[in-house]
């Protein structure tokens, strides 16, 4: 469904992506792992067109994303941002229903609110949260609201950018389970970037390890622990010794 072929991206003299090859089949959950600053977020932003890649091909169902009609293309995506990226000037339900209140997916306000409350319930939040503002919520609740917003318009593809960053282990587990359940339930294709190995094991069908701007290893999550790729092994074990330089 999503295919990246020899994707390059530089910022000035910094060559972040050096020929990334990766694909995600329809309904598959691919998790991209890698150290901080290896270009994982840039990769997702390139797919969404938030950052324009320099060379290579990024295609959704065979169509080059740069050629796609922008609104129709983006309407197929949902994204959970690392920090939630909720709009602070809007109430929770307005955040969740943002897409349903304007543009091509516009619905009557009451209907949009009902859908928002239903999505909030789906991510484990009670309806009385709907009229609160994001600043009044805890970090875990903000992540849930962001997740509800990502799924509100029933997207075909959902991106999760560091979904458990800043959360305690229990809340991380809850969010991981929610993501897995929702992705399976919706039949959506998911791409997640994380360096949280518990997320990887909970969410992934397939894992790809990004290092030095290229995919060093990719394979089913079940084969991850037995893989002999030195980069992957060092990352999984969290060891300072290995081919990945650790700055101390």
């Amino acid at each position, binding site marked *: 469904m999503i295919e990246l072929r020899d994707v390059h991206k530089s910022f000035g003299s910094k060559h972040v992506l050096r020929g990334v090859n990766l694909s995600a089949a329809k309904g598959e959950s691919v998790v991209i792992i890698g150290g901080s600053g290896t270009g994982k977020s840039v990769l997702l932003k390139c797919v969404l067109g938030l950052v324009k890649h320099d060379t290579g091909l990024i295609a959704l169902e065979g169509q080059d994303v740069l050629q796609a009609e922008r609104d129709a293309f983006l309407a197929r995506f949902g994204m959970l*941002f690392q920090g939630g990226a909720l709009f602070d000037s809007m109430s929770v339900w307005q955040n969740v229903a943002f897409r349903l209140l*304007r543009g091509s*997916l516009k619905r009557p306000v009451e209907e949009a609110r009902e859908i928002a409350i239903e999505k909030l319930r789906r991510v484990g939040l009670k309806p009385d949260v709907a009229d609160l503002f994001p600043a009044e919520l805890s970090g875990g609740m903000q992540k849930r609201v962001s997740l509800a917003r990502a799924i509100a318009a029933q997207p075909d593809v959902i991106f999760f950018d560091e979904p458990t960053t800043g959360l305690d282990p229990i809340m991380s587990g809850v969010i991981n389970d929610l993501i897995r359940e929702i992705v399976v339930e919706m039949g959506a294709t998911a791409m997640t970037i994380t360096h949280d190995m518990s997320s990887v094991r909970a969410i992934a069908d397939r894992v790809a390890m990004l290092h030095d701007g290229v995919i060093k290893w990719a394979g089913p999550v079940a084969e991850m622990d037995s893989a002999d790729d030195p980069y992957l092994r060092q990352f999984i074990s969290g060891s300072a010794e290995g081919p990945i330089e650790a700055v101390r």
Partner: protein
Amino acid sequence: MNLVLSPVAAIGRSTLAMLAAIGRIAIYCGQTLSHLFRPPFYFREIWGQIVQIGWLSLPVVGLTALFTGGALALQIYAGGARFNAESVVPSIVAIGMVRELGPVLGGLMVAGRVAAAIAAEIGTMRVTEQIDALVTLSTNPMKYLTVPRVLAATLSLPLLVAVGDSIGIFGGYLVGTTRLGFNPANYVQNTVDFLEVWDVTSGMIKGAVFGFIVALMGCYHGMNSGKGARGVGKATTNAVVSASIMILAANYLLTELFFTA
């Protein structure tokens, strides 16, 4: 040799950076203008911004105008007394307020209040990925954030200027009648007799241009904000400074255009 060339190179670098910035602002301005007339239009956002920019700036602009009108009356009276021209106070206060001080001081006060607020808000949205989130939600940030603010400021400022002019003239009237011994009826008559429609409309046109500048600078610097609190702080400062300088420069150009052509 390096001692001679280094300052020249530094001047060259600064000049190039300034020209590049002017180019970027010009492109941003062109993009904003092109989006002003193309749907979708976010009327609720536009109305919200009219309240934020226009209505909530009234106290600041009103107080500035009131004190400026009063001080202007005192200055003109003191200056006029040197050649027995104290009677010109009402007309000069009125003309000074509506042609120059109303729009310029109103524009500068709104630049301080609004350009800073816009840059800080949009800059924070940039830093916290809210702008990226807007894009992924199929919403063009230029249409959703910039156009409503620019439109609201351009429409609100002329009205603010008109209200400020009235309050400024009233400030001059208060000082003139209570401190300088003017007859209230004569003061009003003098003001009305000397003021022309073009004096008022030229000031309001200036207000519209200043409103456009204030919102454009706030949005531009917010959208191009650097990372972290420092980046947002710098964007806010740059928005106020650039809006203020551009208002003063535009005021000179508009005055040349309106009153010397």
